[in-house]
């Protein structure tokens, strides 16, 4: 994928004297709870400079000193100045340690790494975002970018599936986006609860009913791999072309620069070639047990 204007290229950064293996120290500015096991961390460089610029869909390696380092997608606005934002789910030792950080604590950040969502390709066409669970976080930068320059794009449709109403991410923002009259927001949950009058069912059901211009629309999918597979198949059934569908893959990234091979996926190295892929580039790998 060719870089977008203004996108961040790792080679340029190395030429500029940045060693991608050395973390830059950031301080925790604020931690906000999104739901019972997910939080968003806002970080600023300890040296007083600006956070590294990034493109929507890229990730950083976040290092809790003495505990470990993990890859986390960037969930903030790629266009506006402001703190670096990561939305994180507590699923292991490092993320649990991150949840215990307090404002002023330090964290190491390497990145941004990887490919990005092809937001420029969407100019003049409809944008369909299909997200599942925490998969909304890597797509939020796209929403910021599109809503920040709304007239450049066609219809914007956000289809989001969560496990239960209380686990819906960015609830206030979803309500605001849905009420903004220039974005179709549809949310469904796998399990309803008392008081929930919204949709119950899987996100693929939303795709069947979504208003989209299938001839030109671009679809960006992020969530559990099975959900992405089924969503892509449903979009294809709706008449979308394979080369207009993009997915974000997740593997155990370690070095972030394609050297260690930890995140190898078939012939691809996800930290370097991905995490964002055009669907037809990885279709043959999806669902294969050996990779």
């Amino acid at each position, binding site marked *: 994928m060719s870089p977008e204007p203004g996108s961040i290229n790792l080679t340029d950064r190395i030429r500029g004297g940045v060693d991608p293996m050395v973390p830059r120290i950031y301080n925790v500015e604020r931690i*906000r*709870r*999104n*739901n*019972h*096991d997910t939080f968003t961390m806002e970080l600023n460089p300890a040296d007083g400079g600006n956070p590294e610029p990034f493109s929507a869909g890229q990730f950083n390696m976040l290092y809790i000193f003495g505990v470990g380092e993990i890859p986390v997608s960037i969930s903030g606005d790629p266009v506006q100045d402001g703190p670096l934002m990561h939305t994180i*789910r*507590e*699923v*292991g030792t490092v993320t*649990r340690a991150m*949840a*215990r950080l307090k404002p002023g604590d330090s964290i190491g950040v390497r990145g941004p790494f990887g490919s990005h969502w092809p937001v420029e390709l969407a100019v003049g066409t409809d944008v369909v975002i299909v997200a*599942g*669970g*925490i998969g909304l976080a890597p797509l939020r930068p796209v929403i910021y970018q599109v809503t920040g320059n709304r007239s450049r794009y066609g219809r914007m449709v956000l289809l989001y*599936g*969560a*496990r239960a109403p209380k*686990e819906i991410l960015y609830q206030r923002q979803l309500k605001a986006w849905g009420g903004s009259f220039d974005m179709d927001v549809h949310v*469904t949950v*796998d*399990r*309803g609860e*008392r008081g*929930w*009058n*919204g*949709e*119950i*069912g*899987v996100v*693929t*059901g939303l795709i*069947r*009913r979504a208003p989209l211009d299938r001839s030109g629309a671009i679809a960006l999918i992020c*969530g*559990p791999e*099975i*959900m992405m597979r*089924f969503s892509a198949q449903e979009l294809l059934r709706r008449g979308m072309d394979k080369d207009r569908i993009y997915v974000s893959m997740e593997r155990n990234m370690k070095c972030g620069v394609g050297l260690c091979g930890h995140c190898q996926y078939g012939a691809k190295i996800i930290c370097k070639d991905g995490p964002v892929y055009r669907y037809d580039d990885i279709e043959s790998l999806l669902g294969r047990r050996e990779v």
Partner: protein
Amino acid sequence: MGDTLETLKSDLFAAPFCEGLEDTHLEVLLACAHEERMPKGRFLFHEGAAADYFYIIVSGRVGLELNCPNRGGLSIQTCDAGDVVGSSWLIPPCIWRFDARVLEECRLVSMDAAVLREHCKADPTFGYAMVERIAQVKAERLDAARLQLLDLYGNPEEGRHVARTRID
């Protein structure tokens, strides 16, 4: 009256359920159809009752529920505009398996399933077209149920230590 029939016809024929049907089959469906409005909270049918009709939603939302002692009606799926509510009418013993409750005021096309079953027996081509469509509804719901069973968005760490702090 003419307007009502035209509205019914356009609502019915626009439904995904009718996509690809022959004109003669569409006419059979139209003869078994009438339009209904249902307020929020009304039940379209209850588990265990005879499935002698089914609905196509024009607008609004319907929840499929299972009544659970001490827990009330548990919603397992919602149906929205364009969806078919009720697929048990074609599959013996033709008894509803769930409750269907209106969650948002609905405009519906109601179909006389008892008469449609007779048409299915009399005209195997029509019968096959109906079986194909109801099988599609069942297949989509089976796929969805399987995905829901996988609990794809569940936290693998659930049940272990998870910080409980204020949610904003």
